[in-house]
C-alpha cells in the first residue's frame, strides 16, 4: 500500500498505472466489455466509418474494430506478460544462483547463457516459429526460450554487485541463511533494476509479437491481435488510416505507459532515487518561483 501511495504522488506514474491496469482489466473482461463479437463479419458494413453502434468503425470484413481492439489485448498484452513472467522467473532464478554462489555453477550457467545469446534473437524466434509453425503458443514459447538467458545474464550481474557488498557479508556473519540473504538483502536491493529490465523487455516483446503478427507469423485468423489488425489495414492505409491508427496507437500508449511506470517504480523502490527526485523537484520549484518573481518585478 505504501508503494502505491508513493506511486500516486507522481502524476505520470499514476496515469501510467491507470492505463496499464485498465488495459489488463479490459483484456481480462473482454467478453463483458466488447460491444460486439470480435469475429462477427458483416459484409454490408465493410469499411464503415465510426457510428454510435460501432465507435471505431468496421474493418474489411465488417467486423467491429473496437471489439477486436479489446480482444486483441489478450494475445498482445496478457499472453506477452505471461511469457515475460515465465522467462523472467526462470532467468532470475538462474541469475540469482550464478551471481550469488559464483564458482563452478556460475561458470557452467554463464557458458550456457553465452551459447543461447550467441544466436541472433529475432532470427532464432523466426526459426523456432518456422519449425513449430505459426501461432501464438509457438511465438510465446520462442520468446521464453530466447529471453531467459538474457534475463539470467543481466540479473546475475546485478546480483553480483550486491552479493559483494559489505552489508551482505555482515548478514552472513550474523548467520542469516542463503535464502534469507537472497530474499531480504539482494532481491530487495536488485528489484528496481530488475523491474526496469523486465518492463523494457515487456515493451519490446509487445512490439515483437505485433511485428510477427504483422508479418503473418503470429496469431492465426480470424482471432484479433494488434499487429495483425495493422497488417489487415495495410491495403487501405491512405484511404482509411484510422484502421491502422487504432491498434498502432494502442501499442504506443501501452508500451509508453509500461516504460513510464517502470521508471517511476524504480524511483519509488530505491530510496536514493526518491531523495534525488525530491531534491530535483524542490530545485525546479525554486527555479520556477524565482522566474515568477523576476516576471512580477
Amino acid at each position, binding site marked *: 500500500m505504501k508503494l502505491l501511495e508513493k506511486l500516486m504522488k507522481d502524476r505520470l506514474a499514476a496515469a501510467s498505472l491507470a492505463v496499464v491496469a485498465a488495459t489488463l482489466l479490459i483484456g481480462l473482461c473482454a467478453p463483458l466489455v466488447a460491444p460486439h463479437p470480435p469475429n462477427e463479419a458483416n459484409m454490408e458494413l465493410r469499411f464503415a466509418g465510426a457510428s454510435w453502434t460501432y465507435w471505431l468503425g468496421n474493418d474489411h470484413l465488417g467486423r467491429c474494430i473496437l471489439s477486436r481492439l479489446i480482444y486483441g489485448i489478450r494475445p498482445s498484452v496478457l499472453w506477452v506478460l505471461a511469457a515475460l513472467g515465465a522467462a523472467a522467473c526462470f532467468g532470475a532464478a538462474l541469475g540469482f544462483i550464478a551471481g550469488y554462489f559464483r*564458482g*563452478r555453477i*556460475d*561458470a557452467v550457467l554463464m557458458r550456457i547463457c553465452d551459447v543461447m545469446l550467441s544466436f541472433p534473437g529475432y532470427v532464432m524466434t523466426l526459426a523456432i516459429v518456422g519449425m513449430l509453425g505459426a501461432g501464438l503458443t509457438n511465438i510465446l514459447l520462442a520468446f521464453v526460450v530466447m529471453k531467459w538467458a538474457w534475463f539470467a545474464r543481466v540479473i546475475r550481474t546485478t546480483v553480483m554487485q550486491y552479493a559483494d*557488498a*559489505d*552489508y551482505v*557479508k*555482515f*548478514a*552472513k*556473519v*550474523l*548467520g*542469516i*541463511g542463503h535464502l534469507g540473504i537472497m530474499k531480504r*538483502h539482494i532481491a*530487495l*536491493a536488485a528489484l528496481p533494476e530488475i523491474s526496469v529490465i523486465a518492463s523494457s523487455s515487456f515493451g519490446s516483446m509487445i512490439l515483437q509479437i505485433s511485428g510477427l503478427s504483422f508479418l503473418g507469423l503470429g496469431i492465426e485468423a480470424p482471432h484479433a491481435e494488434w499487429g495483425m489488425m495493422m497488417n489487415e489495414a495495410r491495403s487501405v492505409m491512405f484511404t482509411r488510416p484510422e484502421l491502422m491508427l487504432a491498434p498502432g496507437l494502442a501499442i504506443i500508449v501501452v508500451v509508453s505507459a509500461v516504460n513510464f511506470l517502470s521508471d517511476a517504480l524504480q524511483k519509488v*523502490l*530505491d*530510496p*536514493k532515487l526518491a*531523495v534525488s527526485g525530491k531534491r530535483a523537484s524542490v530545485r525546479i520549484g525554486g527555479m520556477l518561483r524565482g522566474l515568477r518573481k523576476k516576471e512580477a518585478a
Partner: protein
Amino acid sequence: MLKVEGVSKSYRRNGWLGGERQQVLRQVHLEWNRGESLGIIGESGSGKSTLGRLLLGIEKPDQGSVTWNGRPVTDRRVRRGTISAVFQDYTSSIHPFYTVRQALLEPLKLVGGQPDTKDMGKLLRQVGLDESYMDKYPHELSGGEAQRVCIARAVSSAPQCILLDEAISSLDGSVQMQVLELLKQLKESSGMGYIFITHDIQAAAFLCDRIMIVCSGEIVETVATPQLRHVQSEYAKELLRKVIS
C-alpha cells in the same frame, strides 16, 4: 576462545576455468582470548582480509580449521551472537533500502531479542548519535555517522568479539581518532574484544593489546603492544621504520 590452526587458503587466478592458483594464506596459527584486542597488520595484498573472512566463518579454508570454543565458525549457529564485524566500506555496509532503525533491528531480532525504540536509542547514544538518526537511510549519513551506525549494529547483539576489517581506513583523520576513542570506550564498558585488521600500525597500537604482523600470507611476528619497538623480524622492523620516518 577463537583458534586458528594451520589455515591455508588459495584462489584461482582467472576464475573457475583458470588453472593456476594463488596462495593467499600459508599455515596460519593464531589464538584470540576473550576480552583481548588483537591487531593484525600488514601491507595491501598480504592476506589480512582473507584471514578476516576465514575468522568470520564466511569462507572456508583449504586446509586447517578456525574454531570458536572448539566448534567450527563456519557453522552459523556458532557465530550468532558471538562474533560480529565492522567493515571498511561504510557506503556499502548498511542495506541501501534499510533505515538505521531497520539496520539495528536485524541483529537484535536474530539473537532473540524483543527490541523497542528505547533499546535502539540507547545503542545510538552509545556510539555518539541520537534518536533523530533512526529513520535516516545510509545515503543520508556522513562517513563517520555511517561507521558509528555500523559499530552500534555490531555491538547490538552483545558479541564477545568484533572483527574490525580496515574499519577506519576510509574515514578522515579526525573522524578516525573519534571512532578509535569510541571503540576503546566500548571495550572498557562492555568487556568485549576486538580483532583489528589494519595497515595502520599507530591505530593498532592505540587499540590493541597484541599485534600480529602478516606478510605474504604468513604471520611474521606476534608482539605485545608495549614491546612493539623491539620486534625481531626484518619485515616488522622495516614496517615500523616506515611509520616512524
